[in-house]
């Protein structure tokens, strides 16, 4: 049974909901608040996808929103706003991951063993997601960004290539490399290992990720 694809960007897929949301904005709202209501679902969706269990999730989402609101005036075509916002959020998160890797490499903390920030208390029981995020941190950033879209966002190869700003061929190569790494690491995790089946891919099977 083929997996059911869920929309990657709710704001784009359900344009009718924008009008509903905007109706909820108080009449005395400023233009920034109006803009927020339009871009927040895209930003929150992207942050939730990549940083659901990250302790800095809320701050990062606010930072992205600030950047989006400040730079929204540069978008020439208002119809492309959501796409632009998704690209900005994607790049911000990508830069965050790169910066974290660099800081981890440069910081003296690396000498005594890096301890990632303690996650929030898992009130929602997202143990699988938390364990998966820890493995995803071990992947190269370019592979992690693409593979997260696929694994958690159920995005198609075309969507992944578009979001990552690369060709489908490159996206497929990154997905394959990330999947191999992830599978190998997931099999070492006692919780995730039981959910990774010993499935052998048929020779010549063409996969889109």
């Amino acid at each position, binding site marked *: 049974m083929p*997996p059911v694809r869920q929309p990657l960007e709710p704001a784009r897929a359900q344009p009718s909901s924008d009008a509903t949301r905007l109706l909820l904005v108080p009449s005395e709202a400023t233009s920034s608040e109006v803009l927020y209501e339009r871009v927040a679902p895209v930003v929150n969706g992207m942050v939730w996808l990549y940083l*659901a269990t990250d302790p800095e999730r809320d*701050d990062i989402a*606010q930072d992205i929103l600030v950047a989006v609101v400040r730079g929204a005036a540069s978008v020439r075509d208002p119809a492309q706003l959501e796409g632009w916002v998704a690209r900005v959020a994607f790049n911000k998160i990508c830069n*965050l991951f790169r910066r974290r890797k660099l800081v981890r490499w440069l910081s003296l903390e690396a000498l005594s063993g890096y301890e990632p920030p303690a996650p929030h208390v898992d009130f929602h029981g997202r143990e699988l997601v938390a364990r*998966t995020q820890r493995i995803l941190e071990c992947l190269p950033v370019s592979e992690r960004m693409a593979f997260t879209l696929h694994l958690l966002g159920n995005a198609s190869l075309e969507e992944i290539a578009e979001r990552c700003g690369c060709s489908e061929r490159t996206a497929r190569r990154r997905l394959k490399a990330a999947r191999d790494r992830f*599978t190998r690491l997931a099999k070492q995790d006692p919780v995730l290992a039981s959910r990774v089946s010993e499935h052998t891919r048929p020779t010549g099977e063409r996969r889109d990720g």
Partner: protein
Amino acid sequence: MAELERLASELRQELGSPPDAWQQAQRARWRQGLRAPAGRSRIRGFAPWVVASLGIMAGLIWLVAARRPAGSDERWLVAEELRGPVRLDDGSTISLGPGGRGRLLADSATVRFDLHQGRASFDVVPERKRSWTIRAGKNEVRVVGTRFSVFFGSDEAFEVEVERGVVAVQVPDRNASLELKAGDHLHGHPGQLELTHDVASALPPASAAASSPAPAPRAEDVAAVPAPSARPDVSAPSALPVAPEPLAARADWQLRYREGKYAESLALVRAQGVGKHLTDLSPSALAELADAARLGGDPELAVRALALLIQRFPGAAEARDGRFMLGRVDVLRGDDAAAVEAFEGYLHSGSSGRYVSETRGRLMELYAKRGDAERARSVAQQYLQATPNGPYRRLARSLITSQP
């Protein structure tokens, strides 16, 4: 992807969409204008690297600054830009002739002037703690306290004219320094320098103008080796009455000698007239004076000092070593007979001296040189018996094996 399908499905289900409560909280935060920084401060992680970088930079800056002595003065002097002589803090002056230019570096200990072109005149106030060096091409002039001028022109033409005092000139053609006195005029090109003496241009020394007469006229080619001369009469008093030098002044040349600055030491000896009062010196001072003269390029004065040392203090340790040194100076002067006499005297004074082996080696050479093979073999046998691995062993063996 099939092997991850189950996991992916559970992950998507667990992750779900952003909760409304979280989105509302984010909205409320936005409206409240909360703009907290994106992450924990990274300054703490970077701080050690920043501090280390700043420390390294500060160290480098300090090293560069420390290389340059404090209070140093470095400037270019160009005749066309100067309105008059350049006066230094100690009263010394530097004047440039037309077209003259050079670089001056002065600090509390040294003054150095690199003359690039033209004529420069110097009036140096004697100061013991400050050394003056003038460079003109490959030539170097060291100053004690004097008035003189240096010229450096095309084709490396070099000229030094001394009006007062003494300077030591180091030219590429000679290993030893050349001391110029008042009235001396050194001029020419590399390899063809000539020294002349002009009485009229000589000024009396500033400090002893009243008591010291002008030096006798002389003219010589500085490249020429001094001709061998008879042993001077060390007991004869100086022909001209000169007031004795104070002990403090004597100590200056000894200080320069102990610093290894033999030419400057010899220049001070001459300037202060120490050579005319050898009888006032102690055995150790005589030995040091002889060394300064020998190494500074005045073998005649060295011979005088050593002869006086041996004559007046025959029992002193300096006198015994002085015989060996006298022999060495005599060899340098080309007086082999006097050298043999001095070396034999050294050996006769005892067999435990530190130069016994060296003396035997030199005697071997001198005996062989004058054809006295029997004595040469005798000394060679003594040499090999005492020092079979000495530096003269090959000569000694050859002398012994060449026995008829």
